[in-house]
């Protein structure tokens, strides 16, 4: 099992958008998928997921629909909207830049200065 990494503030929304972009999912499914795509490194407090989902829906980035889950229960499925896809792209690009900048900064050696 991989070591757990604490979530940076603001990254939960981005992770949810990413998880949902891979196909419609219910809340519990989003949780499992984030675990799966982060190779179990990122663990989210379960209850905190729902306020985040509602916030994203409130902002019109995802939308929801009731459907039937794999275990034959009624569940609410979330799907990315066009606006959400756009947001995901810009946030991903922004994240990449941040990571590169941080890596460059942290990897700097004294002779390079």
């Amino acid at each position, binding site marked *: 099992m991989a070591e757990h990494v604490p979530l940076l503030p603001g990254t939960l929304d981005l992770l949810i958008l990413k998880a949902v972009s891979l196909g419609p999912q*219910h*809340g519990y499914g989003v949780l499992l998928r984030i675990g799966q795509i982060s190779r179990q490194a990122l663990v989210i407090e*379960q*209850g905190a997921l729902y*306020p985040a989902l509602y916030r994203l829906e*409130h902002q019109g980035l995802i939308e929801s629909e009731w459907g039937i889950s794999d275990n034959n229960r009624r*569940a609410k499925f979330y799907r990315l909207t066009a606006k959400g896809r756009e947001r995901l792209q810009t946030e991903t690009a922004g994240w990449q830049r941040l990571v590169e900048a941080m890596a460059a900064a942290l990897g700097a050696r004294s002779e390079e200065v």
Partner: protein
Amino acid sequence: MPARLRSFAKALIHRGRIENEMAEELEFHIATRAEDIMRSGVSPAEARRRALIEFGAVERHKEDAREARGLRLVNELGGDLRYGWRQLLRTPSFSLLAVAVLAIGIGANTAIFSAIDAVMLRFLPVQAPEQLRRIEWVAREGEFVGSYNGSMRPNALKQLVAWSVSYPVYRHIRDNSTSFSGLMTFSGFTQLNLTIRGHATLVAGELVSGNYFSTLGTQAVLGRTLIPEDDRETSLAVAAVISHPYWQRNFGSDPATVGQRIAINGKPAVIVGVLPKGFCGVNPAWCPDVMLPLAVYEILGQGEGVLQEPDHWYFEVIGRLKPGISDEKARAETELLMRQAILQYRPKEAGDLPRVNLSPGGQGIDELRSEYRQPLRLLMCAVGAVLAIACANLAGLLLVRSAARQREIGIRLAMGAGRWRIMRQLLTEGLLLAFLGGAAGTLLAQYGGSAVVRMLAEKNQPPGVAVAANLKIFGFSLALCLLTGLALGLAPAWRAARVEVVTLVKSSGAGADRAPLRAGKVLIAVQAALSLVLISGSALFIGTLVNLESEAIGFKPYNILLFQLDPTLSGYKEGRLLDFHEQVLRSVSELPGVTSASISRWGLLAGSRTTDSIRVPGEKPISTDTHFVAPRFFETMGIPLIAGRDVTWNDRESSKPVTLVNEALARKYFHGLSPVGRILELEEKKVEIIGVTGNTKFGSLRDDMRPSVFIPFRQNPQHSMTYALRSMSNPKEMTLAVRSAIEAIDRNVPMYEVKTQIEQIGELVRRERLLAGLVSGFSLIAVVLAGLGIYGTLAYFVARRTPEIGVHMALGAQKRTVIALVMRETAMPVLIGLACGVAGALASGSIVEKFLFGLTPQNPWALGTGAAVLLACSLCASLAPAFRAAGIAPMQALRHE
């Protein structure tokens, strides 16, 4: 942003469903998680327990989720409202009082505003009223207007502004204009004698051009409106349309009314249609019962040749601008056409022709607006002051109450409530009160507003506008409620925001918190100042009314019955007309109870008058009031005959023209010498003076007694005459006998304007009565409120300082000293308020000046009355708390600690 709004709205509307869905979604999560845990071989109960633990605090997450949807504010508002409502119920008498005070404050404002809306802001109920234009013209005095015959008003540049043109001028403009899709005209108020099924009544009629309704875009609700084909002289029945209320009143809304034959001034007519409800022509001051084509003007005996005469400028014109035509283009074209028309009949006018302006016509004629603009504005200020007083009053009381709640607030703060959250709670309570008061007030305003508008009515005819609930009025009272609520909640909220938790929780119940008292004193000063302005204002209006009513009028108005007869509406003319009046007068003079009777054209103080220009040969002409009278006019009215003789039945058409003059004229022209036997020139006719009478008022109470001449009525025939009967007892009791005496002579000539001379004078001061009555009512409310405010603040003061006063008493203070101590608390703010009020009253003097008569806004009596009333009120209000303080037993006070 729209997504958020939609989501918020959805959340708000489907709150219940969303709650259920949220519960179901979380339940699904926990159940599925439990299933996953069970796969590792745990019992279902244990699996569920672990799933729940992993999930965390369900309710907290739910609350966060609600907030994510923006619902938290709504939920909290609901809570605040519930809590506020409970607070109100805890002190029901205070709450009821507060709601009543606000209902009066907001109700009075809404009532006056709805009257303003009806009179000033409303558009005519016609198609696209914004396209309508009213034609007005301007000329310099002494030029073109020298020969003009019609009404006009001077403007700021000393030019004369008029709205009417002569019929030939109107016709020329109408037939040649390319800028208007229609140009129509109308006669204004015309009294008509209408006979339905043999029964004659007088109605308010208006004669209109054939394109009147097509220009306005008005359709009949039954039958048809008038069309250009109706507007020509005809030997057939005259086409008539009737108003909706007249149809309801006199025909019981019978659909078979259309086609019914009637007679108008004795001429056959047929009802062709019923006008829509609310349509009252283009003059909101009155509502016509019947509308007829203008072409029948002469047939109905309304005046000969008026439609042909180019010098009779009697007709106002309203047009509908064609789409895409600019005002300036239409104006220039109309001016050109008007000048062309004038030059056709008066080729030499060239230099000084009138200039034309177009003014908006969508609100119709502005008679009512220009007369009541200022009184209504004044009333709006007065009710604004009442509401401000009500707010200051309640804010003071709420402040005192919030002081009593300091501990509760302190505890809530100590337990972690946000300050903004507590301020919001207090603001919500203020708003709750304001909206409860506003709801009650809006109901009051429905009646109040209509009552005010009814008081503006003229010509014994309901006005053409009515108060109607609409969005504008709703928005106004909503805004008032919001403002009031904020004003009420702000002071307590502000204080709550500055509460120091530690001191509060530590302090005992009777902390020496003086801040609300200071604020309360400021509020008392505000109330005193505003009340003083209102009271001195009402003293000024009452003074004006008293001055007007006690103004020397030169005759004895008691026990006189007045009525009018217009036999021309039944076809009487010339000699027959005069004989008819003489016959009726002789007949009613002999009725039992009548001590004296006579007739004149208008009567005295009827609001109408005839003015003429006369001169003594060889001297400059002067302007006079002209009366046309029968014998015994002076005896009947109680005017002294100073020299010479009265008019007699021998002063007839064929005899020598004679006149009486009043003292004012005699003094002006004859300087103390007796004018009897001298000659006057009147309309180029020489008349001999046969007597001199005392001076009287004629047109209005405000005018001076002007030089007047009295001409025998047979020597200058008029249409209608006003009868005056002096009786020994209540003159109204004679009405029936008089009516049958007239019917015995001709039952087709109806009596109208039946009233006593006293009632007649009352009508002249209607506007003054309205102002005096309403403003006094408002001041009474203001005084009562100010008293309440003073009482409330002092009672709080005494309660707070009971221990201190007890100590004073224990140390031997006299009761007198304690009473003085308490009274001093409000004396200062009241005095400061009075000083500000006097300054305010003096500063606002110019607003009321033009409504006053016989006194100035700076009248010391009015200000003195205001100050005296307020001081008395504050004295009364502070006596009870002062004596309660004086009655405090030292021991009890110390135990209180």
